[in-house]
């Protein structure tokens, strides 16, 4: 432009310069950036109006001020000075910084220093431009924050997240996935292929093809194999992500752990299955009892017709023995299907546990140790103590049998848990504020996980054919269900099994001992000490007055006492001191007329045949005897006695 200009006189030139300056001042003043000229002494030589407006000062008050004064000496010394010095070496300097402004507060700026040289090439000034980039920086910070929040979510969500390429090579996995798959670190996973977690290659190929066609899909349940080789039921969803060109760049997978749901579902299916079997078996048992009643009735009549102690009478008794056995079996089936009413009284669980352990310890193999820990002694449940004894005895016997070969430790723990814990554990309606939790843990053979779901079915057995009826655990299941409790099991092949028994704690402390003046006096001839204790607990708590006899002399003494004549005698035939012969002899010699009940172990009836033939015994019960049965027997015996007198 200068070349084109033809200056005619100096006035014109000055005019021109003035106009030129006005235009450039206008441009500079209207710029949205703060523009200033700074000299070597760090002092403002010139500032534009944006600069003045931003600082809310006049042009005159700003020119001549040092940068330290304007921006604060701390900021000046730490940031501004070194950049200005750098600019005076001839370089354009750019940087971002936040400054505290009197009116606007802290804002972000981009600062550009440009060296201004005059004709002698010496840099005397720098031109400073300061752009307000606060909005830009803030939105950038928000974006970073959002991204971090997303990443936190991805890391912490209890859902496995996995990104891989179209070949299945893992690019990224979140913490939950690592935990779910039991992998040590992300590094080891990123060197893997997702196919390695699938039970077979073909399933992944099928899912991949689906995704390639449809972009996203939930595949439902897949049993993935974790890093430790264990199966984990998962729900898998996948979706394709494409790059700008539209080609697939990676696949994202979401993997949800279904173990808990599956566990609950399985438990429900098991319970329903057991209920169905129960209804079926219960129905058969019901019809079967009709048939047994007929057989039993005719054999009773036959027995009445035959002379006592005859050979034929002996055979009839064998029929009756078989009927008793069959009845005990149908009773167990009915117990499993919860169709037998249990006689319930408040029972101290700790007492029954202790007695059961005591009962077992007498015949414990030397290579097996039993440990017990009872943290709450005073918890009562509303149950039949003889049934509880059967439950505990059965669970402990199973545990001991599982450890027979290699030895081990049976740990029995009893504690009380509150409703919250129980509700979480059982995931069902609960009936009490507190539950007794018993755990029976062995270090035995353990069970195959596939069998675990079936062990409570009647006639399911892992023992050899012919050993046991296979009713044991199903009866336990029935008894516990009837008490509104729950039994759970976990087991590891080769490591051992744990049975968990939950029983609702009864807050009922009502006195069941009945009218004291009316209490019937019963003499119990003790068999095994611990089992006898359970019987006495059952009978005393249901209102009878009990005395014990374990030796012949004691029996003679009790029976000769005219004042304290007992109303009934219960003879447990496994008594060591008093044999059936002794019993008969004492009865005959003392001419005792007191009604008596005989309790025998199943399969030992022949030992007691003499006793049954002697006519001394009114009722014969075969173990396992429930409180209800024994109470019925007592009732009938006492009534017969009354009838005899009339």
């Amino acid at each position, binding site marked *: 432009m200068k070349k084109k200009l033809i200056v005619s006189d100096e006035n014109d030139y000055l005019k021109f310069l003035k106009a030129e300056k006005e235009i450039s001042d206008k441009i500079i003043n209207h710029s949205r950036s703060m523009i200033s000229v700074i000299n070597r002494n760090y002092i403002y030589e010139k500032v534009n109006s944006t600069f003045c407006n931003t600082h809310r000062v006049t042009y005159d008050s700003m020119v001549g001020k040092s940068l330290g004064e304007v921006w604060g000496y701390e900021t000046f010394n730490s940031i501004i000075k070194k950049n200005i010095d750098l600019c005076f070496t001839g370089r354009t300097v750019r940087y971002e910084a936040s400054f505290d402004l009197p009116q606007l507060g802290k804002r972000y700026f981009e600062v550009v220093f440009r060296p201004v040289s005059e004709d002698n090439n010496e840099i005397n000034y720098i031109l400073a431009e300061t752009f307000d980039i606060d909005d830009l920086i803030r939105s950038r910070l928000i974006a970073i924050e959002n991204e971090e929040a997303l990443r936190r979510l991805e890391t912490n969500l209890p859902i496995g997240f996995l990104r891989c390429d179209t070949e299945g090579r893992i690019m990224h996995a979140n913490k939950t996935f690592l935990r779910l798959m039991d992998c040590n670190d992300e590094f080891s996973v990123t060197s893997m292929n997702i196919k390695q977690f699938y039970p077979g290659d073909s399933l992944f190929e099928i899912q991949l093809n689906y995704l390639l066609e449809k972009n996203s899909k939930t595949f439902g349940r897949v049993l993935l194999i974790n890093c430790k080789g264990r199966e984990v039921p998962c729900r898998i969803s996948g979706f394709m992500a494409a790059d700008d060109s539209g080609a697939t760049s990676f696949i994202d997978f979401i993997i949800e752990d279904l173990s808990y749901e599956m566990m609950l579902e399985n438990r429900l299916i098991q319970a329903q299955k057991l209920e169905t079997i129960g*209804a079926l078996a*219960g*129905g058969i*048992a*019901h*019809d*079967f*009892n*009709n*048939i*047994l*009643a*007929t*057989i*039993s*009735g*005719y054999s*009773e*009549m036959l027995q*009445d017709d035959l002379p006592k102690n005859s050979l034929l009478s002996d055979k009839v008794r064998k029929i009756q023995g078989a*009927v008793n056995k069959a*009845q005990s079996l*149908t009773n167990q089936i*009915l117990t499993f299907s*919860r*169709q*037998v*009413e*249990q006689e319930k009284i408040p029972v101290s669980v700790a007492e029954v546990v202790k007695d059961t352990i005591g009962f077992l310890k007498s015949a414990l193999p030397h290579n097996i140790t039993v440990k017990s820990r009872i943290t709450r002694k005073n918890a009562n449940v509303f149950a039949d103590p003889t049934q509880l004894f059967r439950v505990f005895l059965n669970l402990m016997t199973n545990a001991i049998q599982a450890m027979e070969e290699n030895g081990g430790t049976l740990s029995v723990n009893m504690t009380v848990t509150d409703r919250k814990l129980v509700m979480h554990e059982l995931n069902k309606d609960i009936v009490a504020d507190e539950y007794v939790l018993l755990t029976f843990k062995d270090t035995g053979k353990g069970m195959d996980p596939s069998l675990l779901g079936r062990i409570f079915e009647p006639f399911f057995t892992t023992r050899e054919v012919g050993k046991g009826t296979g009713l044991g655990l199903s009866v336990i299941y029935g008894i516990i269900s*009837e008490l509104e409790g729950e039994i759970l099991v976990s087991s590891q092949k080769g490591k051992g099994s744990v049975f968990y028994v939950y029983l609702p704690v009864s807050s009922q402390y009502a006195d069941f001992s009945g009218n004291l003046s009316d209490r019937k006096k019963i003499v119990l001839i003790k068999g095994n000490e611990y089992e006898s204790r359970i019987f006495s607990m059952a009978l005393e708590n249901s209102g009878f007055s009990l005395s014990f006899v374990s030796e012949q002399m004691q029996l003679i003494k009790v029976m000769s006492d005219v004042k304290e004549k007992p109303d009934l005698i219960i003879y447990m035939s496994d008594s060591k001191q008093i044999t059936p012969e002794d019993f008969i002899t004492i009865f005959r010699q003392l001419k005792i007329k007191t009604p008596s009940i005989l309790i025998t172990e199943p399969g030992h009836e022949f030992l007691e045949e003499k006793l049954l033939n002697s006519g001394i015994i009114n009722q014969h019960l075969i173990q396992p005897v429930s409180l209800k049965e024994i109470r019925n027997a007592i009732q*009938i015996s006492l*009534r*017969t006695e009354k*009838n*005899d007198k*009339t």
Partner: protein
Amino acid sequence: MPCVLIVEDDKELREMIKIALIRRKFTVLEAENGREAILHFKPSITDVVVTDIIMPEEDGLNVIIKLKEFKPDLKIIAISGGGKAGPGSYLKLAKALGANAIFSKPFSVNDLIAKIEEFTGSEQPADL
């Protein structure tokens, strides 16, 4: 002699109870379900009713209710082989409805007869 009505759908079992009662000189009436028992009930001659609970047509619980209406002082003995609806609930219910005694199957027929004799006051000491 006292008269006993046996209500039982299982023919063999009914027959057995009948024979046992006839041996003890009881008069016996039979019904093979609850409906028949209620329809042909003879209040003037029946002293004791032995009834099963679970039967086709009409169950034993209804028998107890209806017959007690006809004859309030009638003695009723309920016999059952385990309730299908719940833990022994039928026998318990029978008792609540007015059954004078309950027996669960299989029962001792001698015990049953002893009970009937107790109700009718017709004990035969010779056989005991």
